[in-house]
C-alpha cells in the first residue's frame, strides 16, 4: 500500500552527511510473520519521488522532536570505540576484569559531542553497545535485546502508546552504527498514534490496544501490506528517533563484519 505520511527523516542541524536521500532509503514489500515475530519481506526498491517527499523533511526543520535526525560521529570518537574494544579484549584475555577502561568515559565524550551539536542525549540515559551476528536477518534496536524477536516498538512494550508528556516513558532515544561497514535500520514510518488510527480504520470494530507493545504487534499483524522503510547508516552514522517512538529493527543486510551499534535509551533508570 501507499506510504502514509508520518515520521520523516532529516540530517540533524549542524551535521553534514555524505550522500543523498535516494541512495539512503529503500522501500520494502510488506511484513511477514516468522518464528512468532514480524520481519520485513526481503525485497527492496528505491523510493519514488512521492515516497521521498513523504519520508524526508525538507529544510528548514521546524519541529525537530518529531523528526528522525541523522548525525555522524567524528572519526576521533569512532577511533576511541575501537581502542576501548581492543583494551577490553586484552584485559578480558588477561582475566583482569577490574583493569577495564570504563565505557562511561567514551559515552561521556559522545554525549559531550552531541550536546555541542545541540542534539543532547537526555540526562541519565542508558548506553548499550550491542554486538550482533551480521548473519541474522534483524538485530535489536529496542530496550530489551534479550527478548528480541523481529520488528519491535522503540517505546517500552508495557508503556501506554498515548503517553508523550513528562516524564518520558522508557524508550530508545537513538542509535549509532559503530562498525566500519554500512548497516541499516528497518522502520515503519508511522508514529504510534498513527499506527492506532490505521488499525482502527481497517478494523473499526476491534478495541485499540492499550500498550505500545500490543499496538505494534496489532499493526504488524493487521497491516502486512504496509511497506517498511530501510534507512542506510554509514560507518559512524546515527539516528535520533522521533520523540513518540516507532517500530523498528536493525537490518545488517549482508554485512561481513559483526554488527556493532550503540543504543541510547532514556527513562530506563
Amino acid at each position: 500500500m501507499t506510504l502514509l505520511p508520518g515520521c520523516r527523516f532529516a540530517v540533524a542541524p549542524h551535521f553534514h552527511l555524505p550522500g543523498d536521500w535516494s541512495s539512503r532509503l529503500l522501500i520494502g514489500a510488506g511484513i511477514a510473520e516468522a518464528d512468532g515475530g514480524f520481519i520485513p519481506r526481503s525485497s527492496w526498491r528505491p523510493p519514488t519521488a512521492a515516497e521521498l517527499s513523504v519520508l524526508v523533511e525538507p529544510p528548514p526543520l521546524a519541529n525537530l522532536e518529531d523528526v528522525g535526525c541523522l548525525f555522524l560521529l567524528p572519526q576521533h570518537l569512532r577511533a576511541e570505540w575501537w581502542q576501548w574494544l581492543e583494551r577490553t579484549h586484552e584485559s578480558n584475555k588477561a582475566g583482569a576484569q577490574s583493569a577495564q577502561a570504563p565505557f562511561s568515559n567514551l559515552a561521556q565524550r559522545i554525549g559531550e559531542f552531541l550536546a555541542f551539536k545541540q542534539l543532547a542525549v537526555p540526562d541519565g540515559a542508558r548506553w548499550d553497545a550491542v554486538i550482533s551476528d551480521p548473519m541474522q536477518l534483524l538485530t535489536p534496536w529496542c530496550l530489551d535485546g534479550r527478548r528480541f524477536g523481529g520488528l519491535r516498538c522503540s517505546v517500552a512494550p508495557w508503556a501506554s502508546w498515548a503517553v508523550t508528556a513528562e516524564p518520558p516513558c522508557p524508550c530508545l532515544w537513538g542509535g549509532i552504527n559503530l562498525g566500519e561497514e554500512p548497516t541499516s535500520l528497518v522502520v515503519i514510518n508511522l508514529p504510534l498514534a498513527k499506527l492506532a488510527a490505521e488499525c482502527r480504520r481497517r478494523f473499526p470494530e476491534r478495541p485499540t490496544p492499550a500498550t505500545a507493545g500490543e499496538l505494534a504487534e496489532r499493526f504488524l499483524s493487521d497491516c502486512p501490506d504496509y511497506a517498511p522503510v530501510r534507512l542506510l547508516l554509514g560507518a559512524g552514522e546515527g539516528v535520533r528517533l522521533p520523540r513518540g517512538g516507532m517500530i523498528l529493527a536493525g537490518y545488517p543486510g549482508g554485512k561481513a563484519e559483526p554488527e556493532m551499534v550503540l543504543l541510547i535509551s532514556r527513562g530506563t533508570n
Partner: protein
Amino acid sequence: MLAGPLELLVLQPTPFCNIDCSYCYLPNRQSTHRMSREVLDQTLRWVFASGLARVPFVLLWHAGEPLVLPVGFYEMADDLLLRHNEIGLPVLQSFQTNATLLNADWCRFFQRPNVHLGVSVDGPGFLHDRCRRTRQGQGTLDRVLRGIELLHEHGIPFQVITVLTAESLDYPDELFDFYQAHRISSVAFNVEEIEGPHTASSLQRAGTAERFRRFVQRFLSLALAADPPLQVREFEQAAASLLSARRHGPDTRTQENKPWAIVNVDCAGNFSTYSPELLGLTSPRHGSFALGNVATHSLPAVLNAPAFLALEAEIGQGVDLCRAQCRHFPFCGGGSPGNKFFENGTFASTETLCCRLHKKVCLDVTLELLESHTAQAAVERERALT
C-alpha cells in the same frame, strides 16, 4: 621618531590569484602584473638602506598567490637578498599559498633552510569548497589535498591557515578530524574579516561571539588532548601574550599598529606600513594608504610627510582608546588598524568583530584553560603529598 625595527616585510610578487575565494579582500586579484627584477632590487635596497632592518625579520610573499610566479623568480630574490643583506641578518622567507599549484619543483625549492610555508585550507569539502573556488565556481579542495600530499612526500613542514566563517563554527570535531586525516600538525585560524572590497562577514550575525567561544573551547580541548597535541597558533599566541604581558608590563603596541614594524610593498614598488590589507586602498580622508614608492621615496622623507604623520596620529589615538577602555589591552596591544578602519570607519576607535572574536575570545578561553590546568596540577600535587 625612531622607526621600526622591521619585523615583517610583506612583498607582493603579483596581485593575481588563480582562484577566487568569496571572502578575499584583494581588490586586484585579476591583475596579472608581476614584480619586476628591477622593483625587487629597489625594494630590498630600500629596506636595508632605511635602517629599519636591525633585527631578524620575516619576508612574507603574499597579497596574491605567490606560486603563480615561477620558482626562478624566488631564486633571483634569494640572490638579491643575499646581495643587499650585507650585515647578514637572519631573514625567514614565508610563503602563504593556496597550494593548488604545488609540484615537485616547488617542493624542491621549499626544502631549502629558512623557508616557512603556510597553506590555506578551510577543512572538509563542505566547508572549504563553499568559499574557496575557482573563477568557474568549482571547489579547489582536491587540488589542495594533492599539494599537501606532495609536501608530505617531500618532508616539507607547513602550517595550515583556516578561515572561519559562521558555518565553520558548528564543526570543530570535523575540522580536527580533517587535520588529523591529512597529517596537519600546526593550525592557525583567521576569521572572515570585513576588509577592503569584502564589506560584510557571515560572523556579523547575532550570537556569533558565543558560538565562536564554544568552537574555540571545543577545538582546543581536542587539539590539546591529541597525541601529539595539535599546535594551534591562537592558543600559543594567547598563552605567550598572557605570560609576556605579566613580565614586560602592559604598554607595548602590537606589530600591526607599531609604525614600520611591518613594511608592505606591492608589485609596482609602492609601500605602506601598518596592516598589510591597507596597501592598494584609498580613503577620502587619507588618500592612498601607500606612502611612497621604493624608487622615489626615502624613509626619512616619508617619516615627515603629512600623510604618514596624520595616519600615525589617528592610529595612535585608537591605541590610546584601547589602552584606556579595554581590559584585554595588555595582551592585545591595541589591535589591527586595518580592521578598525574597515569596520568603524576610523583608526581612532577600539573594538572590531575581528578583535572581539579572534583576540578577546581566544584570550579568555586560553586563560580559562591555563587556570583549570594550574588548579588541576595543584590538586594532583596535594594528592601526591598526602
